[in-house]
């Protein structure tokens, strides 16, 4: 860990009215890394995400992006270069796909109220650039054909991908994905895995929360396990997978059984044959029931 990590959480604790949701959680994300965050139901993963993105202000500790402490304001965090998706999809339902992504461009566009009023040449150019970039991103996540479809009318898997495109539109240095494959079938899950690799190729570091351990172990360079608000184990997938505490605390199954399952998945992933895999049923967080539409 010699280089400055692109994203660092330093001893983040979060207390809600006497209830400790997170205690002393630290995390280092290196450039070009894909980091997985796993943990059982209610372990505080989403709370931790909310601390990383400035939605919550940690009780103690702080979050740094390339050495700079991040403010606790979601908009400012996004401007600084950390983008996120939500566990329960939160698109702008009655905007089109393209408009959703263009909202993501908001903080990278310069036009103020007056320019927006008069639509001068510079304004129009900015608008065109934003549209072009947004189209590119829709292509990139595989939604090239549904520009003008309302977000709410997209199939579930497409909505998740649209959320990723929208987050990428903010030109992030770090992308935080909250359960990107929840509710997806195996084909979609595999496509998402390839998409995350492709995102890494563009120089964006990624943090992923997932319940699907096979998915995490086959995707990530580094895995952190959160249990009851504390960091239990971290390391490469191999290290984490082999750690009996993880298997005990998180999976609640006899170690050898899980290990066999995990090993099998890793082999399959290595041979590029996900067809026969069974995806573990995602376990929903407590607040998972709140839908995207109000």
């Amino acid at each position, binding site marked *: 860990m010699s280089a400055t990590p692109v994203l660092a959480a330093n001893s983040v604790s979060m207390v809600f009215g006497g209830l400790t949701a997170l205690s002393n959680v630290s995390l280092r994300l290196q450039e070009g890394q894909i980091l997985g965050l796993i943990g059982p139901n209610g372990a505080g993963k989403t709370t931790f995400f909310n601390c990383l993105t400035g939605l919550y202000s940690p009780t103690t500790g702080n979050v740094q992006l390339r050495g700079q402490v991040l403010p606790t304001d979601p908009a400012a965090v996004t401007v600084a270069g950390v983008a996120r998706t939500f566990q329960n999809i939160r698109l702008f339902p009655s*905007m089109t796909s393209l408009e959703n992504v263009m909202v993501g461009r908001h903080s990278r566009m310069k036009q103020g109220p007056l320019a*927006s*009023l008069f639509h001068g040449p510079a304004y129009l150019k900015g*608008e065109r650039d934003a549209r072009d970039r947004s189209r590119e991103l829709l292509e990139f996540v595989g939604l090239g054909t549904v520009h003008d479809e*309302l977000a709410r009318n997209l199939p579930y898997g497409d909505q998740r991908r649209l959320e990723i495109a*929208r987050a990428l539109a903010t030109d992030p240095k770090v992308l935080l994905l909250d359960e990107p494959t929840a509710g997806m079938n195996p084909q979609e899950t595999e496509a998402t895995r390839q998409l995350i690799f492709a995102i890494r190729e563009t120089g964006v570091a990624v943090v992923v929360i997932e319940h699907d351990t096979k998915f995490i172990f086959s995707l990530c360079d580094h895995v952190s396990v959160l249990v009851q608000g504390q960091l239990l184990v971290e390391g490469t997938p191999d290290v984490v997978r082999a750690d009996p505490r993880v298997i005990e605390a998180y999976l609640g199954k006899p170690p050898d059984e899980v290990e066999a399952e995990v090993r099998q998945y890793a082999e399959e992933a290595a041979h590029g044959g996900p067809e026969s895999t069974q995806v573990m049923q995602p376990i929903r967080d407590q607040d998972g029931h709140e839908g995207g539409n109000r």
Partner: protein
Amino acid sequence: MSKPTNSVTGSVAIPPGLARPLGIGGGVLAILGALLPWVTFLLNDGAYPDKATLQFFDAPYAVSGFRLHVLLLGVVAIVAHFIPVPLRRVLRALGWGLIGVAAVNIVFPLVDGGGFGAITSDGTNFAFGGIVSLIAGIALVLAAKTGPLEPVPQWKTSVPTLVAYAVLVVSFVALLLVVAMMLNAGGQGGVGNPYAGPIFLSLLAFLAGVLGALHGIGLTGWISGLSDKHKWFSVIVLVLVALALPFTEAGTDYWMTTAANIGVYAATAIGLNIVVGLAGLLDLGYVAFLGIGAFVAANFSGAAAAAFDIELPFVVAAIIAAVVAGIFGAVVGSPTLRVRGDYLAIVTLAFGEIFKKAAQNNIGGLTGGANAIPNVPPINWFGASFDESLTIGSLELPSGVLYYVLIIVLVALVMVVFANLKNSRIGRAWIAIREDEDAARAMGIKTGQAKILAFLIGATLAGLAGAVFAHKTSTVAYDSFQFIESVTLLAAVILGGMGSIPGAVLGAALLLVLPEKLREFSDYRLMLFGLALVLIMRFRPQGLVPDRHRRAELADEGADGVPIEELNVHDTPGDEKAVTR
């Protein structure tokens, strides 16, 4: 394939086999109904309805007024069976139009003309016309329920520019003629003319039926698509067409004044639409900004009761009024930084009441209190006083025409502001906030700033409208700016469709023209507003002219909000034939 269709149509299930008998039969009945005698009776002056006693055998071609409308609806309903159109959509619209026309012309004589006898007999004849037409309408609606509604066809908007221009000009001119016809229908309401209301409502029902049918075949969607594409051309033509209104039959002093009032309210409603429709913030004290603009302008108008003994040119005063209102808007909006949605509505309501109280008590000597600020002089440019009539060459234009022109320009300006903002980075941010505030923040939008900006711009536009209002009404009194006026403006926005510009204008127009036409029901005005708010929220929350996003939603849904995919499951071969025939 042949599942029962009752899950689609809701409560009533009509066998598809009845589609043709009901549809064509309904059309024939409508024609018959138009030609049969309708009721007639005398109020103060003249028989109602106009030419209602026409006898089928005496003069079959002398049908006019609403009976002509019934006839037309019937003919179109029959013709629609033999041309390729989304039949059930068209029949549904025509049917409701027929029901509306018949109901108005049955209920009015029933209530005002002496009971049931009045609608069934006319001297020695049985006046069945109304009832037959009503049944015809119901038959058409039932025919539309024999299957799922067809999707609205999308016509290609990639036509040669010249063709598009021609279509737009024709459409807008047609719109002008319709507006003039509506304003003129039945004349102005009041004690002297009790027929104005029903004649107007009947025409409204007919037009609604026709527009519904045109929408059903995709024509209105096509035209609005074209006007979206040629935005600037549309704006210019629309302004020119609006300026032509004084030259039509509606070009009277009375309607010029009413139209100018509509314009002031429409401009204010569009401003409110930025706050409510785009940013999704409910403002219940919005009329205060109109009031602030009006009082500022009045105080700089040189009126005797003004606080400042100074007469500024109107344009300067209007700009000051807009700026002052805008500042207040930002102040009122600033609690949005901390206050959540519906609490904010209460803050705005509280502000509106504080403004009213302050104005009522003549705060700082600026509002005249209960005495108001009377005798605000009319605007005077280049020696032309705006409240006098205007003579161009040999043409004498009605008084108030200059205000009308000024207000058309104002409304056009406000429309352009709205449209430009809506399709911009700021507008997208507002809509994002409306849809999901947390997600909007996660996209890097500074939601507090954006919301205050919405309040500021909305208030500025209202202040500008207020300046015109002050000169036009000549008396600025605190009681023109009560809570209920805010509700009226909100009703205009919601009736027309949140976030939609034509909607705000249409809403303001309806809410101001209807009371003029229905003077004898003026006591019920507020109650009808209340009822309208409740019913629209329940049955048509997207309003009469939905904004593009919401329109897209609608295009994907059937009559009862059933998604199209679900509808297709129940599609039967018979239905397809009906569509493509």
